């Protein structure tokens, strides 16, 4: 369980980083940020990048900033940065709630927000957040900057729209409405394990009715995404148990479930039904 040999590059600037990445992209050059996913798969030799572009010494990548519309999260912002609300907006609370479900504390101190998105594990909590809130991923390369919408970014299990020479320099999350409600729930076998299903919901209540509903489901399909059928079941309805159950059922029906040696499609639907309903219950308390 020792990684295959690789060359580690340590750029000091983003320009330098993307320059190196362009040179090594053809040899499976990879960006190393927190290393919490990449390094274990290298230890198993499931990944054998010949080059690592280590961005831990690049200035300015650990910035979190809000311009009143968007929260901008730099490439080296660690998960642990979100333990406290990073912005005075429901989004800050949402991120602070979700981050507690990511693995275990030592991993959160090292792993990065953008790294999770670039890795695109279907079970990733941050990928679910990005998909549900329609984040914008900002890819940087020697060719320039390319914003990618979440719906175009995720491309199946551990696969994204990022080209080999592109570095995910920043993720932009839209701030939520001041009166937005959110709820999150996930199911994993043990505390800190990969979620077998997860759900993030946000909505507003206008005149006693749900509006602007977003229902995201993660861990259950190859990529996290919003489930339109579940959102339709919510919008215009009062936030009540019966409505939540209908939305959960719609989500469970709509997904194309991942299956594995232990988990049938039926079971995955059971979990989606449970996590969506519980996320909605969580949102209303």
């Amino acid at each position, binding site marked *: *369980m*020792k*990684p*295959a*040999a690789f060359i580690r590059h340590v750029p000091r600037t983003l320009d330098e980083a993307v320059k190196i990445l362009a040179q090594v992209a053809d040899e499976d050059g990879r960006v190393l940020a927190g290393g919490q996913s990449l390094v274990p798969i290298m230890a*198993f*030799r499931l990944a054998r990048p010949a080059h690592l572009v280590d961005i831990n010494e690049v200035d300015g990548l650990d910035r979190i900033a809000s311009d009143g519309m968007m929260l901008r999260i730099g490439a080296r912002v660690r998960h642990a940065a979100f333990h406290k609300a990073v912005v005075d907006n429901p989004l800050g609370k949402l991120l602070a709630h979700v981050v507690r479900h990511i693995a275990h504390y030592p991993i959160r101190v090292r792993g990065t927000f953008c790294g999770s998105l670039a890795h695109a594990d279907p079970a990733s909590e941050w990928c679910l957040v990005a998909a549900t809130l329609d984040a914008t991923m900002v890819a940087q390369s020697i060719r320039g900057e390319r914003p990618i919408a979440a719906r175009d970014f995720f491309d199946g299990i551990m696969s994204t729209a990022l080209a080999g020479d592109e570095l995910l320099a920043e993720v932009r999350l839209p701030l939520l409405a001041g009166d937005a409600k959110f709820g999150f729930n996930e*199911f994993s*076998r*043990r*505390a*800190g*394990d*990969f979620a077998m299903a997860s759900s993030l919901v946000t909505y507003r209540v206008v005149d006693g009715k749900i509006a602007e509903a977003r229902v995201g489901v993660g861990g259950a399909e190859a990529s996290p995404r919003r489930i339109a059928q579940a959102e339709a079941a919510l919008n215009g309805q009062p936030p009540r148990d019966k409505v939540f159950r209908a939305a959960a059922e719609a989500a469970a029906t709509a997904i194309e479930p991942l299956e594995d*040696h*232990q*988990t*049938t499609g*039926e*079971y995955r639907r*059971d*979990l989606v*039904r*449970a996590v969506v*309903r519980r996320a909605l219950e969580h949102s209303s308390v």
Partner: protein
Amino acid sequence: MTAPTKGSGLKWVGRAIRRLEDPALVTGQGRFTADLPAVHWVRFVRSSIAAGKLGKIEAPKGTVVITAADLKGVKKITPMLHKFNYKPVGQPILAETQVRFVGEPIAAVVAATEEDAEDIADLVEVSIDETAPLIDARDALAPGAPPVHADVPGNVILKGEFKTADFDTVWKSAAKVVRMDARSHRQNATPMEARAGHAAYDISTGRVTLTCTTQMPHLMRTAIADVLGMPESDLRVVAPDVGGGFGQKMSLCAEYVVLVWLARKLKSSVAWTEDRRENLIASFHSRDQYLALEGAFDGNAKLLALRADVLANIGAYSCFPTTAGMEPLMAMAEMPGPYDVQQYECLARGVLTNTCTMAAYRGVSRPTITFTLERLMDKAATAFALDPVDIRRRNLIDKFPYTSAIGLVYDEATYKETLEMAVKAINLPAFRARQQAARAKGRHLGIGFATFSERTGYGSPAFAARGMEITPGWETVILTVDPSGFVEARIGASPHGQGLRTTLAQIIADEIGVTPDVIKVVHGDTDRAPYGWGTFASRSLVISGGASLIAAQKVRAKLIKIASHMLEAAPGDILLENGAAKVAGTDRSVTIAKMAREAYTQTHRFKGEIEPGLTETGSYDPPGTFSNACHVAIVEVDIDTGRTTVEKFLVAEDAGKIINPMIADGQVQGGIAQGIGNALLEEIIYDESGGILTANLADYMPPTAHEIPPIELHHLETMSTESITKAKGLGEGGCIGAPAAIVNAINDALSPFGVEIDEIPATPQRIRAALRATGKCA
């Protein structure tokens, strides 16, 4: 160390003193095998194919890659049982003509670093002519199944059969027969430290020191010397700090044989540190069993007769020294557990398959048989419309000594008392009320009981009953007060987390009147410790503790003799306490340090009446004793997801005299944590081709601290005549009872749905599938 017991009459035994071994371990000063530097590092090339004919092995030019062809004259590992239709099978050190499981070592790459060795191993090309593998024990039994070993057609490596004379007559008289079909899936003991070995050749003596993470250093030496055909005195085996074993480190590993062979060949040092993936696929597995149990009851729910069919998947080879008989024969001997049942029939078979070899794991079969039997008792309770507690009250043994149907003698124990103690402590009526209230709100709580016996501290007669060629049992302790006045106890047991350095010191301290901190317990080095069997089977405190007591009694007698000379007093007037001998009723005294000094350097004073030196040897080989306990689990089952949360765990345990309550509690708690893993989480899963799908700790899931509930412990102390220290063993009880209690609790929670879970681990997937099948909870 806290001031001892001057004049108080208090003793060290029975006190929760801190562990003497911990300061080094908790400050990072422990020394483990993988800490040693080596000149050469080894990586094993392992089979990625479960079954097939081994063809060409091609290594890159210029690399050192050892295969079976190099190991000429090296014998196979061939453990032997002389009973139960046992068919001996040989395990080549590196695969010869066949591969028999995924993970089997085929070649050893030798390089300057671990990284280089792994790089080279990736480039070694192995051609295997793949054949259809046998993964499941039932498939291996099927007519026409290919033999895993050509000389064992039918794949049954051993078959134990037992039936009492009146079985059929009594069976026919029964009012009700209750059946339980259990499936226990395969597990890995998962010690924190995986395997590691380091063999170093000493050029001046020609000796090799093998440092390895083992529970049985002396037996490793005997076995490796046998296999390599070398003088045993040329091999020293050292077990330094060992990061847990749980039985997985009892058996001889082919890998260690290769290391010793290489050290002698290269006249250098050679090391191998197993990674977690290797540990999960290629170290030893356990608990892969099908158990069918039928109980015949009279009209009062009294068990009259028990019929068992045990089918144990023993993997590709038979483990040394305990053999493949370990799980099936343990199941056969102890299936009736704590219940009074004099009619018993059992068929116990071990079956070869193309899977990793089965070996010991904490509890050895008793977690699975207790699970099966305790589920049977709960099913019988339902059949008779009784409470689970009532049916146990009607059947638990309460007269001692009790001779079981198969002939085991149960010493004094407290099966009923611990049950009542647990029922009272958990407040069963209050729980039932809470359960009802929760159900009304759609929450499903359950309570589960498990009562069991835990056979511990058994000596050579118990192992001999299995017909083992290698018959473990006794232990020896050599106790020396050296000329400095410090005490050294050299022991054949080989603790690796059990706290034996502390508990043995407590036993010795009381006997010779010193504080435990002046006693050094030396173990895990065949050059320094006397021959012994090591640490396993909840034996060390009973047997090595008994040997320590015997040696300490002899040292005590000699100290009194010396004191009597030095103080010119009658031996009967000498008191030994607080590091000195004194004459009762006077102020005349002499320190043990001074007596020890004179025992070596002033022997002329003793006029030939006392042998020089101050070393005594004690050996102990007891018949064995039964600890017992009642475990209670309270769980909540999430009906929507199938998840089980263990809310509370309670134990009423009787392990005889408790030498150190803190250490005893730790043993029980740790066992329960593993039991929770067995009950809910841990499962080695093979795919149909024999590949392992659970080869990392994300897929193979030991519980984390989050999954362990508060554990409440209660003790009774029955003083057994079968243990000279009065201590019974308790190393395994935690994991023996926990799966049964937890799964009984799950079934109690699920009772409104009319589904039953008789499979471990009881995963959310399995629970949810059972619920979904009812159509009641979509």
